[in-house]
């Protein structure tokens, strides 16, 4: 790999960020019940 492109950075962060964001959203949706 000679140099890192922006696309590679986006793909790498998306690969870990999307599942993590999904988990956070699921947890927040469950936590909302605490305040209802």
């Amino acid at each position, binding site marked *: 790999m*000679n*140099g*890192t492109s922006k696309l590679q*950075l986006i793909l790498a962060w998306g690969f870990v960020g999307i*599942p993590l964001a999904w*988990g956070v959203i699921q947890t927040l949706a469950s*936590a909302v019940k*605490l305040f209802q």
Partner: protein
Amino acid sequence: MSSFLDRSHTVAAPGFNRWMVPPAALCVHLCIGQVYAFSVFNLPMTKLLGGTAADWKLTELGWIFSIAIFMLGASAAVLGRWVEEGGPRRAMFTAALCFGGGFLIAALGLSLHALWLVYLGYGFIGGIGLGLGYISPVSTLIKWFPDRPGMATGMAIMGFGGAALVASPLSVWLMASFGVTGSFVALGLGYTVFMMVGAAIVRVPPEGWQPEGYVPPAQQKKLITDQHVYVFTAVKTPQFWLIWIVLCMNVTAGIGVLGQASAMSQEMFPGRVTALTAAGFVGLTSLFNMGGRFFWASISDMIGRKNTYFIFFVLGAVLYILVPQTGAVGSLSLFVVCFLVIFSMYGGGFATVPAYLKDMFGTRYVGAIHGMLITAWSAAGILGPVLVNYIREYQISIGVPKAQAYNITMYIMAGLLGVGFVANLLITAVHEKHHMVEDESDAIGVV
């Protein structure tokens, strides 16, 4: 294959962007942190034979998690030097095989209804994957981010805290679609692939590399060394054992109430907190546990590690003492706020410690030294829950109402944080007689 895994083949080419390394580390930590969500399988595993007398009991299944956590600490301690010297790719690759393979062996155990295979697979082999995976990216991140080591390791260890947020709903969905055994197979294969991606993209910086524009401080701070201490020398220093106590006390206080958060909220606020809302509360604590890892580790880059732990111990003790008062005045919102801050500092303690070790012992063996320190987590994993559960049971047995049964425990947790405060206070710079000399590092064969 062996050459692909070698440290020498993971040295970054010119132009490599260091921001590729945190996602590589997250690929591993987002998988192995699944261990925190393992309890979602417990009840379904007690009904594999239709809920008959031949089915496994919860007490038998509890050992799967315990073996895995024990192996996490043991393998990190024993294999830390192997991880450090072989480089992150070999360690991540091996961790992926162990963790994913452990799931597959456990799946075989489920289909044959052989509990020992589940212990061996997920507990023993998977646990080795946990230990290797946990420490594999630590020193690499610290070397890529000499300007922000706390933030860098905080990002990876945040992934470990956040993994349960993904694994828990994912496992529930997989079990509904493919059954328990099918979910183990799917998770085993999925986690292996995900971790392998991390192993493929991780790189170590070339020798002597510094970030562009970064100038190392001309005069080192008293508690930050630019020298290196060999792993087996480090464990003979009082500083190692003081940091061990610091981590152990911080984790004991948090982990003890972590497993009881749901029951505690329901018993302290009967009628106001149901099982459903308690689950929401536990979810929020997980979010703060995860976020605290990044937040506090990043803050430690600005105010120093020692000051960060001072905040954990002082603020933590105040909050633990405050918790019984929240029950007495019936303030649920204050109770929630107290625990969210407590859990952010619980996570922060894990994430800040690698940078603390780097400050004291240098970067060369920080991964291996961190591996040794993980034994403090194992000890806390036993001490914390035992303290909380037994004190609560004793309180109830002598007639204390359930709503007040946690009061003494909270004061004991505050006391434990007091012990951590003193240990942190006693930490001074490592004596220069422990520093490695160049000949020594050559003889050990470290690059």
